[in-house]
């Protein structure tokens, strides 16, 4: 994987990081003011972890509950793990909304779903004292604004990573350097992108570099004009799309069959395809990438809270963090995972940026819920419902 390009950009990005850090409190404040207090803020937490309930129900991304670390967990704790895989953040929110709170214990939600779950009352505070491994997390993941409100933690950070450009090495002997390949008319019928409204942010990120006159600074906080430009770009892209993929496995078979040659993907697809012998690779183009930062959030009515805490502890330990990082192709929150990654795979730590400086964080535009309350202090940004409606129009 070609992450070198990105590492070179780290220096430039450090300045951006500084900007991001200084503006962060403002974002939290304005969002907090508009949204009020999360319904479950006052709910009590466990004071100690008791005996496991024998079972644990998870909502997770594909690749987040692999036997290699689930089996030892069950052996150690006696908690039988049942997993419901979800293909998008919105699917996770709706699973948790509709009875999920009584059925599921934990959800591995990304930053764009967290606030929706927290303010929806679907998840409850977590006692971080019971998850001691989080002390070794990257500082920016110890109490990030997407899972910690007013100092109350609603979940444990897990892993993060970039959304990459996946391409066939047969069609592209040299790695594409720009996202423009997925908008290029020459690639008609060869492109695949996720069937997910958050994809509008990818178009906005591309436009922020290619059309500076739009003045896009944050791809999740778009004024109507900026939003319309991103939507227009995606509508123009429609004829080039072979398929809007709903599940990672669909994109894998699209590339395995040679049906598509280029597309937006997670590193998970690349790893799976390469392991299966497909001639593909991925890259982060010069415009940068959107990405995810996932957390395990505790359901308000979790039926197995003790097993849930046992799981949060277990997946925060360096070894499991390393296994997950290598399997999915992402960066662990626990800084001690680096050594284990190198043990499991030569050079694994550096390949997935587990030892990168804090500034690396700022180079990825992490998924977050688009809110009308945006950074510019004018409250004129496009809200998530409009993102969803526009996406329906784009996919048609």
């Amino acid at each position, binding site marked *: 994987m070609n992450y070198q390009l990105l590492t070179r950009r780290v220096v430039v990005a450090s300045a951006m990081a500084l900007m991001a850090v200084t503006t962060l409190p403002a974002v939290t404040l304005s969002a907090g003011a508009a949204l009020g207090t999360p319904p479950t803020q006052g709910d009590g937490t466990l004071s100690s972890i008791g005996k496991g309930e024998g079972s644990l129900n998870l909502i997770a991304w594909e690749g987040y509950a692999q036997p290699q670390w689930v089996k030892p967990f069950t052996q150690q704790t006696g908690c039988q793990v049942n997993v419901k895989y979800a293909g998008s953040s919105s699917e996770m929110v*709706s699973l948790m909304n509709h009875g999920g709170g009584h059925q599921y214990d934990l959800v591995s939600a990304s930053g764009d779903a967290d606030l929706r779950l927290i303010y929806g009352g679907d998840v409850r505070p977590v006692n971080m004292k019971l998850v001691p491994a989080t002390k070794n997390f990257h500082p920016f993941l110890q109490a990030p604004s997407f899972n910690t409100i007013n100092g109350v933690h609603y979940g444990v950070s897990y892993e993060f990573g970039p959304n990459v450009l996946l391409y066939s090495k047969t069609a592209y002997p040299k790695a594409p350097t720009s996202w423009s390949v997925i908008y290029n008319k020459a690639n008609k019928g060869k492109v695949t992108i996720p069937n997910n409204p958050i994809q509008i942010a990818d178009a906005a990120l591309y436009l922020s570099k290619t059309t500076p006159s739009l003045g896009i600074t944050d791809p999740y906080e778009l004024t109507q004009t900026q939003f319309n430009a991103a939507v227009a770009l995606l509508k123009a892209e429609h004829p080039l799309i072979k398929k809007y993929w709903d599940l990672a496995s669909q994109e894998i078979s699209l590339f395995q069959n040679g049906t598509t040659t280029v597309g937006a993907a997670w590193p998970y697809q690349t790893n799976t395809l390469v392991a299966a012998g497909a001639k593909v690779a991925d890259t982060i183009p010069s415009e940068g990438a959107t990405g995810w930062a996932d957390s395990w959030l505790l359901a308000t009515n979790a039926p197995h809270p003790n097993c849930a805490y046992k799981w949060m502890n277990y997946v925060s330990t360096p070894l499991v963090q390393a296994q997950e990082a290598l399997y999915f192709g992402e960066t662990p929150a626990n800084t001690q995972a680096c050594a284990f990654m190198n043990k499991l795979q030569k050079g694994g730590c550096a390949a997935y940026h587990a030892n990168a400086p804090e500034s690396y964080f700022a180079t990825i535009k992490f998924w977050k819920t688009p809110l009308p309350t945006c950074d510019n202090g004018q409250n004129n940004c496009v809200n998530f419902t409009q993102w969803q409606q526009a996406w329906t129009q784009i996919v*048609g």
Partner: protein
Amino acid sequence: MFDQQQREAGAALWRRPWLRAVATLSPPLLWFLVIYLASLVALLITAFFQVDSLTGNIVYQWTGSNFSQLFTQSVYATIIWRTILMAVLVTVTDVIIALPFAFFLAKVASPRTRQWFIALTLLPLWASYLAKVYAWINILSDKGVLPDIERTLGLPVTHLAYSTVAMWLVFSYLWLPFMIMPVYGAFERVPDSLLEASADLGARPWYTLRRVLWPLVFPGVVAGSIFTFSLTLGDFITPLLIGGSNANFIGNAIYDSALNGGNLPFAAALAFVSIAIMAVYLVVARFFGAFEAL
């Protein structure tokens, strides 16, 4: 003692036939009313609620906004027409295939051959739906069976996987048995003597087919079309798995708004559309006597 009570209860039932009817019919009737109709009514009521745009929780306030959105945004008209058009196309395709095949089964084949063919027609219904769709992906995809054959024969290679044509092929394949069986039944109910009488009176085969057979078989065709039409109308898995970039059907829109969008009220409003289309279809089918042929 117990015997005595049983005997009295039996006598009471015997003396009041209506009591017997109530006792036997009420469990299935309750099932129908509570489980089936009540849930349908709940669905339709939900269509008049809304969700909170951020949290996705349902807001219980009456609103017609779901329907106004449905009728004002052109994308939903596109989705609805695309679905209806596909359902019609699949139905017509299955009629064209089923008619000669069912005629052969009912009027030409020997009883032994007939048994075999009927078994073969019904056999795919025992296989998993998903397995069948994935099999088609393997047939049509660029490294699949069909392009392989085309390459071997030196023919131009088709790229059918993930396209509208692929959906049409798969749908027509999946629902074909549902068309063949009622049409076969209709052919079988036509007495051979009618065909002989027609021939005796000087009608040519084509004329007999058009004026004698077709009117008698038509209700069977309409009955089969109810299945092929409604099954296509409600499906979302085939478009999801083998459709291309224009594969948003009513079922997918429902799936997206219910599951991805977390917007159950809007999904309910969309379901309303399917129900309305099917209701119109059933009224028309009844007019053509389809229910007598079922």
